């Protein structure tokens, strides 16, 4: 069963690699979709079942379609194939990748060692329990302020996006 987690992690990382390197922007968007699906499976294994559903609905069913729409609307008429990766950036980029990944991983694991790890049985019980009811309760008690702030943010984003993309008067 845990090999599915390995496959999901490889899918996520491989798709992200293609997103970063591929000069064709449409292929990048498609592999970003697969990356999102991989992340959703990883959320499932970390005990976040409701979050995995939200990830698929919002990211795959929303953000991916938005990005595909934008790509198709801006590349259709003029058939621009932008030379995307300017070669002067590739070498620093590779240096960044080879230097940053071990640094981040080491830093995060050291941070993890500083924080108290949860006892294994509590961890297993937490991971296996259904989260939807708990998230619902938390949204209305502990996290009420972020919840209300998010509604205002989403309203602002909705109105702003519609206004910005309005047809020429």
């Amino acid at each position, binding site marked *: 069963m*845990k090999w599915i987690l390995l496959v999901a992690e490889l899918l996520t990382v491989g798709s992200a690699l293609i997103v970063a390197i591929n000069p064709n*922007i449409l292929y990048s968007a498609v592999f970003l979709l697969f990356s999102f699906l991989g992340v959703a499976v990883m*959320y499932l294994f970390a005990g976040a079942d409701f979050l995995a559903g939200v990830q698929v609905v919002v990211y795959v069913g929303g953000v991916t379609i938005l990005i595909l729409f934008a790509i198709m609307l801006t590349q259709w008429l003029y058939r621009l194939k932008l030379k995307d990766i300017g070669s002067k950036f590739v070498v620093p980029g590779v240096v*960044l990748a080879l230097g940053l990944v071990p640094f981040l991983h080491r830093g995060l694991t050291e941070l993890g060692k500083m924080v108290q790890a949860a006892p294994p049985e509590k961890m297993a019980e937490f991971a296996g329990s259904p989260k939807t009811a708990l998230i619902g309760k938390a949204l209305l008690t502990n996290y009420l302020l972020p919840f209300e702030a998010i509604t205002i943010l989403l309203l602002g984003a*909705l109105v702003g996006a519609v206004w910005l993309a309005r047809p020429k008067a």
Partner: protein
Amino acid sequence: MNLLDFSNSIEGYLLVSSILLTLGIFSVLTRKNAIGILLGVELILNAAGINFVAFSKFHLAALDGQMVTLFIILIAAAEAAVALAIILRFYRLKQTIDADEASLLRN
């Protein structure tokens, strides 16, 4: 290295999160296409989300990390919508989405 026990240790999740963050930063820095930069930002946000959820399971055994990830997902959706609206507006102005062309305020 408890990477070999990848479903019971936090190492695997943190490694994936780091790699996604790095690839996101790489996309933001090297891409000329404005939508490509947006793809990088989405990768960065996903990396942060995985990080929060992993710490929530292994070190907290409580719900707080998942709540933060929920809000990250929502904010990322709102930000993607507004960013794409801006890109469409820019395209109407300049007929290109090359990020180097957004240079009216330069010099």
